[in-house]
């Protein structure tokens, strides 16, 4: 399996505790906190993908010769 696929999968996995702890910090009750995790997880991954996209664009414009 290619390195990029493995590292992406590892990032997806590491995003789980980040999102769960964010949900617990924001919601005092367990029920609403747990129910909000799928939405938060999606938003987090999309936001990270957007940041990665911007970085790749900047690299393509300014770094490549």
């Amino acid at each position, binding site marked *: 399996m290619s390195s990029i696929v493995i*590292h992406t999968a*590892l990032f997806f996995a590491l995003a*789980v*505790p980040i999102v769960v*702890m964010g949900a*617990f*910090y924001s919601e*005092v009750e367990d029920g609403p906190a747990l129910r909000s995790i799928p939405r938060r997880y999606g938003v987090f991954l999309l936001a990270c993908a957007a940041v990665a996209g911007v970085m790749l664009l900047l690299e393509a414009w300014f770094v490549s010769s």
Partner: protein
Amino acid sequence: MVETAHRRGDPNVAVLLTWFLPGSGQVYLGRWVPGLLAFLLVEGLYALGWFLSDGRTFEFLDPELRGAMATILTPEAGNLGGLIAQMRYVGFGLDEPAPFPNTVALGGILTALSGVANLFLMVHVHLEARTPPAAPHAGKNPALLVACAWLVPGLGHFLEGRRLRGTIVFALLVGFFLAGTLMAEGSNLSRERHFYYWSGQFLLGLPAIATEILSGRPPVTGPLPYGDVGLLYACMPGLLNVMAMLDVYGFAERRWLGAELPAAADLHGEVPV
């Protein structure tokens, strides 16, 4: 905020005093014996760590990283007086290369432990300063619960009666730390090798400390294909445990001060009168 007339003292002054000199915040609040005991405990840990490491813990930092702010991201910064004294008298260690004492790693753990213990003391004096002397308390002491949340991730939630949350926190944080340690093949457990990552994972408490001591800090014997990812996996749970500790504190403080539990969105906001 609790009204000024009902406070024992200014909480910010109590915290700043404690930060520079452990126990002095409690003395400022008129509690001499607990203040003296806190001073002996926190500074005793730092002094023992300094003795065992020969004051050379910060020599682990690469020379190009050594500077005035280099130590601010270490656990020792929680005991600012001790850290300043160490930097004043021994700085970043010896100028000439020399073997470290055998107990340097243990000494580093103890000085770090002193800084973390003083953070809990700062939490305690801040709350104590805001609590009217005769006010009734409910629930367990928030500072104690935060210390438990650091010691074993999830334990603070568990002691608050939030067992599902505590179990999830423990499983996620300790699980990812162990996964990271396996991927890094234990290289993350050496403060000498990864000074700042070690500081991050120290916030995970006993699981990180016990793993380091029990593993004997295994040497790196070959390439680590997932070493960098392992470092992240091991360090991130320590940083996330800070969020868990804040969650534990917010919940416990409202019980302690007798405030009604708020709507979820307000939990981490201002404490009502």
